[in-house]
């Protein structure tokens, strides 16, 4: 059950750790976030050179065959270092969908560029009133000869301002809330009649509201079967959750060790904070929350890697439990750092903000709790 890493996986982990330690400390991250673009193409190329962008893909797609465990290893380290580059969006989400439901031609066209670090992708599934439901889609895609014409708006698309390509969900048939009739399209980020309103996210990334005003997309750019986009997105969500849980585990690891360190050095009333039992017990609960999160995250990733049938239910369970655990750890880390926890200068608040974002991505803990309950 416990993941004893293979030699290759150990190598992957240690190479990421070394790179991030040497080139992606908190100051560097702050500088990246403050640039106009908000991300670093130089570091992105380095990630690709390290093999991270190819790590999870199957060998017959040209990848390194690491699967969800490779993603877990990468995301955990990215979580520890608050990496803002769109690995999750490009490799985990878009790359995952392309590999999962793309045609052989589409895989051959799109995946090599992703793996080499030459293309950034984003996944545009949400809409203003869809909340977390993939089938709640008003954007339409009407067939006209050998192309589709897409009209509508997509909401809070993380990474869209940086992207070369977008995967957009749109309705090819059915009513707003029908499960059937949603299809996925590859849309060029600079396509005519596609407008982006960009904004900064709370966790230092960039996202956009998309408006599609009769955007023309060749029929060959439909991803997966017509009308079956919801299933593809649901599978993508399972993988996304496994990756986000790993990222949360990475962030919690750093929060716990920073809080512990602080409690041993910061003095109040003449003694170290860590001598107060009420704070000791709080930190024990933070420790337990992390241990349980590690266990569930590993369990989920192993389950997805072995393609066992209950993966999707388990994904919802992990999103709930890890989400609550991460929120607890993050809030308490701020609390135990006192005023310093509120300061933008310290990394604590930035982990807190990333965890807050993770908790609303692909469904919050309350949403997934009920989704889990409905499958029990």
């Amino acid at each position, binding site marked *: 059950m*416990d993941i004893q890493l293979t030699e290759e996986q150990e190598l992957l982990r240690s190479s990421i750790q070394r790179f991030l330690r040497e080139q992606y400390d908190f100051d560097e991250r702050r500088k990246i976030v403050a640039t106009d673009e908000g991300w670093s193409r130089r570091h992105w190329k380095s990630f690709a050179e390290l093999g991270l962008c190819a790590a999870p893909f199957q060998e017959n797609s040209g990848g390194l065959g690491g699967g969800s465990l490779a993603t877990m290893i990468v995301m955990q380290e990215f979580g520890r270092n608050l990496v803002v580059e769109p690995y999750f969006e490009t490799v985990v989400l878009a790359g995952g969908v392309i590999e999962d439901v793309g045609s052989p031609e589409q895989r051959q066209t799109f995946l090599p560029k992703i793996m080499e670090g030459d293309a950034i992708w984003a996944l545009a599934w949400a809409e203003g009133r869809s909340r977390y439901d993939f089938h709640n889609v008003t954007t339409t895609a009407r067939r006209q000869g050998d192309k589709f014409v897409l009209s509508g708006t997509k909401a809070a698309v993380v990474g869209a301002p940086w992207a070369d390509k977008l995967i957009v969900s749109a309705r090819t048939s059915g009513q707003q809330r029908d499960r059937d009739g949603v299809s996925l399209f590859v849309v060029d980020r600079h396509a005519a009649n596609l407008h982006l309103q960009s904004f900064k996210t709370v966790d230092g990334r960039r996202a956009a509201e998309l408006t599609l005003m009769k955007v023309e997309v060749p029929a060959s750019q439909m991803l997966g079967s017509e009308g079956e986009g919801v299933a593809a997105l649901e599978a993508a969500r399972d993988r996304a959750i496994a990756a986000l849980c790993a990222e949360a585990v990475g962030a919690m690891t750093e929060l716990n060790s920073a809080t512990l360190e602080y409690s041993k050095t910061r003095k109040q009333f003449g003694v170290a904070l860590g001598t107060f039992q009420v704070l000791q017990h709080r930190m024990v609960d933070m420790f337990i929350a992390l241990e349980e999160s590690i266990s569930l995250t590993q369990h989920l990733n192993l389950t997805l890697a072995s393609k066992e049938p209950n993966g999707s239910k388990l994904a919802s369970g992990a999103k709930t439990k890890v989400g609550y655990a991460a929120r607890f750890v993050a809030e308490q880390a701020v609390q135990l750092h006192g005023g310093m926890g509120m300061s933008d200068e310290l990394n604590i608040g930035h982990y807190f903000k990333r965890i807050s974002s993770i908790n609303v991505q692909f469904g919050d803990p309350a949403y997934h709790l009920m989704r889990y309950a409905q499958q029990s």
Partner: protein
Amino acid sequence: MELELSSEDAAFRDEVRAFIAENYPQEMRVPNPETDLTKEQSLLWHRILHKKGWIAPLWPKEYGGPGWSVTQRFIFEQETSRAGTLPPLAFSVTMVGPVIYTFGNDAQKKKFLPRILSGDDWWCQGYSEPGSGSDLASVRTKAARDGDHYIVNGHKTWTTLAQHADWIFCLVRTDPAAKPQAGISFLLIDMKSPGVTVRPIITIDGSHEVNDVFLEDVRVPVENLIGEENKGWTYAKFLLGNERTSMAGIGRSTRYLGRLKQIVRTEIGEDDPSFGEFIREIARVELDVLALEATELRIVAQMSRGIDPGPAASLFKIRGTEIFQRITDLTHQAIGNYGLAIREHPVSANRFMPGPDYGHTATEKYLNSRKLSIYGGSNEIQRNIIAKAVLGL
């Protein structure tokens, strides 16, 4: 959730499963095995396991253990608890037995170990005293040397199932002048000795599990001293480590959760204002069980690779007991008006108990399980242990 098993381990699991199915005594399938069985009834399964050679999974082979791997021990624990079997008396097999074979002399091993394995001797634990709480080093029971004997005077309390016990293992103070931990010895006392009196303590659920044990001028042969005089604290801590090993209680929590779901499905309609809250709370606690189970499997996998589990036992104790308490709380709420009723003791099928069968133990279980976060080192003490051992605070 399952460990990934080798074919040998899978065969072992099947063997254990089949053995339980064929041999667990029907007589022991009562509403609450912890309170409803006589001493002899509760020993039935113990004796069957002994005959099979499976009574003491932790023990080394030379003392009568089965010689199992970490994984096999875990499988056995998992299968027996999933099947709802009554575990063999922990005070005998899990606690005093390992102390005797680890720190006892040859004569003590020869005298006591076989009778622990067979179930012929029933042991109870003489640790707690009035006023000692979780601070065991505060023990005041005195043992004064008199020739070949110790004269023991004191008062032990919260002594579980002392009413059945043949022997009690006691922490006694042999050096009153020493610092608290330094003057304690570990003494084995025959419950039939003159001067030993057992008085029941009835707990809030109405059951008689625990007792006061009074020791008045009890003469104990010095050959019943374990190890060295005044080194008892070392042995006591060793024993407490064993006490906390399998307290995650995944099998038990899973069974009780299953019953809770059944009760909620039957008793609470979707139009009941509390329905949604039950559904959410059940999902929450189910996820708590899942996370703890995944943690347990992770630790077992580490142990089987020779990695020290460290203070994992404290984590399991804290979360395992919190989870089970929550399940019993929800079950009590789920039976609604019949939460007013509680079975009278001693229990009898002839006494009227209202409401459906599945709710008959809900109230007593809710009340009784409050003890879980108190005994075996309260959950606050467990947090202290983790704070010190893991966090270095």
